């Protein structure tokens, strides 16, 4: 095992583990904004209790997301020092801006969100929730800009293997960025909406806290109904963007080997792509469909993977299948929302057990789609670290493999412990359910203590009311 392979495995593992958590918290923070807004507008304590229930889930995910995310920023230096040094002028400021604009916002106001109920006014508390949500989405803005730049670099000059900035505006708003960011933000909102919907449906099927979870489910479904179809549209735009700027990636994703010279390119619905043989086994195709999807015409030309030198081709088997799983989930979730729409028209949303059961089953699919989607993006970028300009194999740090073997082993142990504990505690919070009877403690605001002897009531870490 060499340093490069081990470092790539480690980076892939740590990012895949990390992304699960922000995916939920970005969407869930928006949901919390909606809940608190509704509570302040309607003065209905149900919304307050909903907030207090869902923030427990938020807090657990946020904690794991924060600590697993810190390592990523360090791994650029520890494991990919050559990459980091080459791209630092262009790439690193985006990381620094993410810290300045997003992480501080989240960390600074999370304390008030969790522990500040009696210490600030409801308006300030609401503002804190909004700022945490804004911080979460801003973080996505910068990190997607950085990743999109690796996909479609622009706004730079390359001198002796080192990138220099010409225009930061072009670095940030590179060609892949708009669809890249929108796709990820929508994925977060959609994943969170379906997670909330699945959990709520589970409670409704058990006939526990029905009024509470009907309300939770309704808001989540409205969120999902707006986003799920939009995500399909953005996905289509993203596909066209990839076709234009990363044609090798598109050809690999679609297992499309030969450029269509006469007639349209077929869409491969099922196949086992083989890189060595440069062909697909057991393929099922739909004629002209790929041309239609990519060029929006039946005859449009789509470049095949064989037109690229073998050393410049990303792995078709991996990208083909991960992409199909992701897109399949996207369509499935959009279909579920179509069904929800029909049920809502007939006012049968809450008493169709099959629909509720479906929501429970599809609940984790948003997370699956996010992770496999990222695998498509990143494996599809190979063999480049910076698309077309710097190879991944030239990116790695001058360190020994033993270092990486050690840290990778530690991560595996750590993630096993962290993952199972996180899962256990999330289930525990869910099993305990919401506090339906407790008073809504928004009325009294304690003055903060100032003297030496006076004490305010505050200790421990319990978030619950």
């Amino acid at each position, binding site marked *: 095992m060499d340093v490069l392979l081990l470092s790539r495995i480690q980076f892939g593992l740590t990012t895949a583990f990390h992304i699960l958590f922000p995916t939920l918290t970005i969407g869930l923070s928006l949901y919390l904004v909606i809940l608190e807004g509704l509570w302040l507008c309607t003065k209905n304590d149900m919304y307050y209790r909903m907030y207090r229930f869902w923030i427990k889930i938020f807090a657990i995910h946020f904690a794991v997301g*924060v*600590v697993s995310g810190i390592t990523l920023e360090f791994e650029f230096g520890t494991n990919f*020092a*050559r990459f980091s*040094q080459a791209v*630092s002028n262009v790439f690193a400021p985006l990381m620094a801006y993410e810290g300045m604009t997003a992480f501080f916002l989240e960390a600074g106001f999370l304390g008030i969100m969790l522990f500040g109920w009696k*210490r600030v006014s409801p308006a300030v508390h609401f503002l804190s929730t909004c700022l945490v949500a804004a911080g979460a989405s801003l973080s996505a803005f910068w990190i997607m800009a950085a990743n999109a730049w690796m996909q479609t670099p622009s706004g730079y000059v390359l001198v002796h293997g080192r990138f220099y900035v010409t225009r930061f505006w072009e670095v940030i708003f590179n060609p892949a960025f708009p669809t890249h960011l929108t796709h990820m933000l929508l994925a977060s909102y959609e994943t969170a909406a379906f997670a909330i919907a699945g959990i709520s449906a589970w409670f409704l099927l058990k006939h526990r806290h029905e009024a509470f979870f009907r309300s939770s489910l309704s808001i989540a479904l409205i969120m999902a109904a707006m986003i799920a179809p939009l995500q399909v549209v953005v996905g289509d735009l993203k596909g066209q963007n990839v076709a234009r700027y990363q044609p090798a990636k598109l050809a690999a994703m679609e297992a499309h080997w030969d450029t269509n010279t006469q007639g349209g390119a077929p869409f491969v619905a099922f196949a086992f792509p083989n890189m060595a043989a440069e062909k697909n086994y057991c393929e099922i195709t739909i004629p002209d469909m790929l041309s239609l999807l990519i060029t929006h015409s039946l005859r449009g030309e789509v470049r095949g993977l064989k037109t690229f030198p073998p050393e410049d081709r990303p792995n078709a088997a991996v990208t083909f299948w991960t992409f199909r799983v992701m897109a399949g989930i996207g369509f499935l979730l959009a279909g579920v929302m179509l069904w929800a729409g029909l049920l809502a028209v007939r006012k049968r949303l809450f008493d169709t057990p099959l629909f509720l059961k479906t929501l429970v089953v599809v609940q984790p699919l948003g997370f699956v789609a996010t992770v496999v989607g990222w695998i498509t993006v990143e494996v599809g970028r190979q063999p480049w670290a910076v698309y077309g300009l710097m190879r991944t194999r030239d990116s790695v740090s001058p360190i020994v493999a033993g270092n990486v073997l050690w840290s990778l082993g530690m991560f595996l142990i750590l993630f096993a412990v962290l993952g199972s504990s996180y899962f256990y505690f999330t289930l525990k919070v869910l099993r305990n359910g919401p506090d339906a009877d407790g008073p809504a403690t928004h009325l009294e605001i304690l003055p903060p203590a100032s003297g030496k002897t006076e004490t305010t009531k505050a200790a*421990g870490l319990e978030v619950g009311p």
Partner: protein
Amino acid sequence: MNLIHIWVFLVGLVVILYVMLDGFSLGVGLLFPGAANRAEQDVMVGAIAPVWDANQTWIVFGGGALFASFPMIYTVLFSALYIPLFTFLFGLIFRGVAFEFRANSHKKHVWNRAFFGGSLAAAFAQGVTLGGYIEGIRVKAGMFAGGPLDWLTPFSVMTGVALTAGYMLLGATYLIIKTTGPVQERAYRQAVVAGGAVALFLCVVGIWTPYHNPEFVANWLSRPRIYGVWVFPALSVTSFVLLFLHLKKRSEIQPFIWSLMIFLSAYLALQSAIYPCAILPDISVAEAASQRETLIFMLWGVVLILPVVLGYVLYSYRVFRGKIAYGDGYE
């Protein structure tokens, strides 16, 4: 002052802010096993619960700022100090989730241990990282060129222990401000012991470092530095005297302030010896800096955004000011 000097100052500022702020959070974690019962543990955790995340964020920003302003330091240092840096990160992971998991768990002792263990690993590894940095790193053609265990020396182990003691001092003096009763009582005693240990370690570091790096002495004695550097040991000695005096007088705020001053004086003394070196022994800050346009782009962020950040971080501290009472949760 040119752009590079501004960034030397800014990165230096972020690093010391992190060290002082997360230092007291980690210090509370280090003192955690001293708590006699559940109520005392809850008070100790409660003292830092609303602010630890913002404190920790300074290193996240620091990492990004270092990457963007002095990429050579970022890449060389992080490759060279791979093992201590990851140990530090693993420590932060355990410390961070312990807050959240502890609150939800019936088996609190498991996450109590994770809280202490994580804080210890993070504090010690930071000290080792510092030691490894001071000892110098082998660089060839702008890249790390040494072995994986170059950092492991008696000196770096000593700086690891020294920084751990330092964080205990910060944690204890912070607890004096935030708590009452038995936890505060113990914190006074712990502060005296930790303060003594820090004084001892600073003497050892003060003798050992110049022995290790003779160029430090040359730097200190060179003009115009010689006119200024005596301030730092003087500040350090004054801070120690006032720390112990105020601990004896049972002041609540002063011991923390003087502990911070001890950190600040040691840090400035070190920086004044290293400057203008970026990576010891011979890479200068000018060589290690990034492109001018990048430094300017980042400076805009610092000028426009960082004051706002400081504003709301201070606001958050204000919201959670006051003592932590026993046996009650945040509402």
